[in-house]
């Protein structure tokens, strides 16, 4: 009669445990990535709002750019007041875009 666990049983148990741990770690990693993206978007929106407020009051035709923590907000204003604003992320991706017409001054 033998009692206790064989090495194979222990290894298998550890393997199952490892899969569970990796799953939790993967979830944490995903949460961290999502949060980083949310932070980047929040900062992009905040910067874009500030730029839009300025353009609304002083929207002279031309191009401009304003950096934020993880990218840059760039805009162009045409002679007709048409404004195109974009927030560019750290990898060059477009985080948000706004196309509008500025009020006549």
């Amino acid at each position, binding site marked *: 009669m033998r*009692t*206790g*666990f064989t090495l194979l049983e222990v290894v298998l148990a*550890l393997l199952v445990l490892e899969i569970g741990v990796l799953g939790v770690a993967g979830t*944490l990693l995903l949460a961290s990535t999502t*949060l980083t993206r*949310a932070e980047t978007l929040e*900062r992009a929106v*905040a910067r874009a709002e500030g730029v839009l407020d300025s353009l609304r*009051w002083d929207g002279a035709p031309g191009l401009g750019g304003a950096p934020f923590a993880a990218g840059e907000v760039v805009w162009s204003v045409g002679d007709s007041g048409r404004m195109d604003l974009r927030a560019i992320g750290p990898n060059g991706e477009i985080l948000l875009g706004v196309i509008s017409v500025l009020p006549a001054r």
Partner: protein
Amino acid sequence: MTVSRRTRRDGAGSRRGASVPEAVVALLVGLLVVHLALRTVEQMRSAQARLAKRTDALVALRVGRYVVRSELRVGLRGRDWVLSDDSLSLRAFRGTATVCPMRPAPDELLVRYRGTRSPDPAKDSLLLLTARGGAEVRALAGMGAPAGSCAAAGAGALAQWRLDREPAADVVLARLFERGSYHLAGSALRYERGLSGRQPLTPEVWSHPSTTWTLSAERLGVRLVPRDADAGAGWSGFLAWASRP
């Protein structure tokens, strides 16, 4: 090989338990597994705590920025808001009413009201705008059932308001507001109305000495610095115009 108690038989008889080398190896392997498990748990808890701090900081940034910007969007410095130390005192507008031509009594107005909440005579005042472009402030003294109709004054719930004293004859619009103040205190953005105390609107995540309002001749801004370095980077930005360009 086994790592725990086992029974082994040999030709001459039976031997129970494990040999000393087996027991030592089993003990070492067991300790290693426990150590790794504890370290993993510790690192996961640490990672979860960092995530929670970053989430709180993000919520605080979003709420703080949005709330104050919304309150100040249509306000004018000096008339609608004033900054002193950590306090931003303001008229917090909660609704707008179109004044009907018919007036039930000299100190009463029949209005059509739209707003984010119902008027409350205990805490609300009115900024009354006249047809000639004037403005005057009255306290909302009471409310009653509307005595009359007002089809021409647009959308909104019909209401009858009693003021603390008679308003101008040509009042056309009434803006309902409460007086309150926002504070960057106790590591959070707080709102205080009357004697209700400073109620926190955000999680308490900000470094108190470093987190401040920033006011220049043209702009009101804010600098938000998280108390904990794990909570992420701070943010400085625009909230409202201090003087209209």
